[in-house]
């Protein structure tokens, strides 16, 4: 368990367009030795004559010694295979992987979410068959950014700060997603790809319902100003006030929760982690991936907001998995009777994983009560 922080990043004033608020995060200096590139595929994996398109897949590249990483495709690299081994690189040179690819966020969601949800290992064939033959249930669906009303325009007219390395996307002032990159150039490259990201059903719905959000215009106290220096001090105070308000209120749902971190990959000075919150009712739930440095500061971070329905399903699956799918124990853990618990599973579209006769029996009892 632990918390996410934006250590090393400063909050700058958000920019509002319609119902979308984009809050930039700025780094004093870029993170050395790590770069994220959009959609970059290793040459070797590219088949001859093949046509590749990876929408918003990211590649992280790093150097072991903390020196700068060149722009993708601009560095000379020795080819790994040479004739008769005469100029073959020393052993270990070719194998040292300094590049790792991330799945596109949309696929990542579909691939990782079941893991985070503790998808049922006991009913895996059924789960898999159902996932292949039918669309995921409505609340689980993720919406492409282009379907979120106003997001495309908001991203288009957004003015990128000098040194900006991240952004928080708010729709109707609900935090929809976060992107943090190690280097400002990476952010510039990745900014347009936010439209290809996936957003939850909740965000899609908010975007339709809320046409505008207020600007947080600063208020200066005129009575305290007697000189230009005073005015400047007031302006600085207003800026600090916004940063505090943002960290303490707007982004509180993300920063104040406790997360489970699962370490998935170790790079030289960094580690790739996936995080998921303790699924509790009534709070925001963000899941995602991050690359943290040795002092747990995020060099890269990507976040997706789950909807209430998704959280409820996740909580049920978690309880079931923890009790090894024993219905009575799981129902007990939630303080419910078994029939009520099965009814809850049915409402969350999970009852098909139970044996038909068991589910029907409990549902009949529940209806009878």
């Amino acid at each position, binding site marked *: 368990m632990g918390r996410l922080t934006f250590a090393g990043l400063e909050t700058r*004033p958000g920019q509002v367009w319609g119902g979308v608020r984009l809050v930039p995060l700025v780094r004093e200096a870029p993170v050395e030795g790590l770069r994220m590139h959009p959609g970059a595929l290793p040459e070797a994996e590219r088949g001859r004559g093949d046509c590749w398109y990876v929408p918003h897949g990211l590649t992280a590249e790093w150097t072991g010694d903390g020196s700068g990483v060149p722009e993708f495709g601009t560095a000379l690299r020795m080819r790994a295979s040479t004739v008769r081994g005469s100029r073959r690189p020393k052993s270990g040179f070719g194998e040292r992987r300094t590049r790792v690819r991330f799945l596109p966020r949309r696929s990542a969601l579909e691939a990782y979410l079941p893991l985070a949800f503790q998808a049922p290992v006991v009913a895996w064939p059924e789960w898999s068959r159902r996932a292949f033959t039918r669309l995921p249930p409505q609340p689980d669906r993720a919406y492409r950014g282009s379907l979120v009303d106003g997001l495309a325009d908001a991203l288009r007219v957004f003015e*990128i700060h000098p040194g900006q390395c991240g952004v928080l996307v708010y729709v109707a002032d609900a935090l929809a997603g976060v992107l943090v990159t190690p280097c400002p150039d990476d952010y510039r490259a990745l900014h347009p790809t936010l439209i290809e990201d996936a957003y939850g059903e909740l965000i899609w719905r908010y975007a339709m319902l809320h046409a505008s959000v207020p600007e947080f215009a600063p208020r200066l106290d005129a009575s305290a100003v007697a000189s230009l220096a005073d005015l400047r001090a007031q302006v600085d105070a207003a800026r600090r006030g916004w940063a505090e308000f943002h960290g303490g209120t707007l982004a509180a749902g993300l920063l104040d929760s406790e997360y489970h971190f699962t370490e998935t990959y170790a790079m030289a000075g960094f580690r790739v982690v996936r995080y998921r919150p303790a699924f509790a009712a009534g709070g925001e739930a963000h899941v995602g991936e991050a690359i943290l440095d040795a002092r747990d500061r995020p060099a890269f971070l990507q976040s997706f907001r789950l909807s209430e329905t998704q959280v409820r399903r996740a909580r049920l699956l978690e309880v079931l998995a923890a009790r090894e799918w024993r219905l009575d124990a799981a129902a007990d853990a939630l303080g419910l009777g078994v029939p009520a618990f099965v009814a809850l599973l049915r409402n969350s579209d999970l009852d098909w994983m139970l044996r038909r006769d068991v589910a029907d029996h409990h549902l009949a009892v529940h209806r009878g009560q």
Partner: protein
Amino acid sequence: MESVADLVAAEDVLLFVNAAVAATGQDEFHTGRARQEWSVDFLHEYMLVNYRDLYAAALALGINDRNKAQIVLRLLRTGADAAPAQRRTEGRLIRRALRDLPASRVYRLFTALQKAKVNNRRTRAVMREWLSARPDLGFEAVKYRGAFKRAAVHAHLDLDRLPGDAGEELAAFLFAPMKAGRYRTPLFETWRRAHHERAAVFALPYTVAEGFAAAHRIPRSAFLEQIAPRLTRNERLRLQRSGGAAVALDAAALGRMPLTRLAAYVLAIPEEEREARRGELTGALRAAARKAAGDRAGTWGAVAAVLDDSYSSSGSGEKRRRPLAVALAAHFLLEALAGEYRPLWLSGGEDALLAKPRGVTALGERILDALEGAPAVLVVVSDGWDNAPAGLAAEVLRVWTTRLDPGRRTAIVHLNPVFDADGIGVRRLAPSVPTAGVRDAEDLPELVAFARFGDGRAGIEELRAAVDARVERWLAEEEPWGA
């Protein structure tokens, strides 16, 4: 003391004039053309119905050509609503406005009149008068053939009795061009021969020749080389990036170009080339600015300017870098006007020639920096989308004017080159600071002088007096019309 209605009226008029200066019916960075058309149309209708005399007088107030044509169209369409005295003034204003407008605009206006089915006696008279006063009708009949024909038909023009050499053959040229055989008018004959003879193409106006060149499959480079002597000034400037050596201009010729157009051209040049041609380009911009400043050069005292080179100054696909071009032109013009000049670009850049649209609009802090030196005049050239944070500029200006400079020793003016369709007008920075729309930076001195009405303190009477004075001056320049 004026009543609230007076203040509202003054505000409406200023709102319209500012919008009519800035709105060009093109896509802007934030909003598209369709929304803009809707809101500009609304403004025109509103003015026409509520303040018809001021609406007509707006023709004299330096608004842009598109909106001048719009005003003329609406005035002609609703002539019946005007009193006879009003009609007389309108007639003079329309005549004067048409004389100033570029010919292409006027022909487009005539086409619009035809499409809108406006064909009252007054309209026909206006069209006839304008057409028969043109110095070279034959040339215009060739260059604007379609529009000319539509206008001639629409105005019931007696073609045979038009003045000039072309008069006799105009009807044949317009309505049965290839049946009349040889023409006696040289340009008509060239046009006829250009259908089958390559050499004749190069004696035609550039825009007409372009079509024939395509039909004859003349390579672009060869075409430009031979048509070069016939290019107009603006056509030549437009072709600088794509035309090659044949149409290239030297520094002195560049310096004679209009300032804002020249700035737009400079911004279209890649950065390395700008760096390499620094001396030439800076010289040309300075020369154009000196010409625009005229005898006002060096008379403004200490001037500070906050110039917007944020990302939104990149404009749209239709208006590439237009707001930045206006800022760059204003920079050089203010440099020429000021005794002591201090430019502050939003990006913090010092090198105006290498300006590029990037970064945020942190107007508040830059205005604060500019006020540091207590200049006599502070000019802010920006689209007004203050966003780092939003509204800080307004607060800084409010506190400045209420607490630090209640006597208004520093005159602050905001010039906005962008029409905001959603706000139906140009975006303001603060209520206490006048905002004026700007299309070409050359108009900056007049706009700054006129902007004093924009701080919400002048009533309609004062404004009306100023407008009337200007209309009188403008109409006094009227020359007696030929024939």
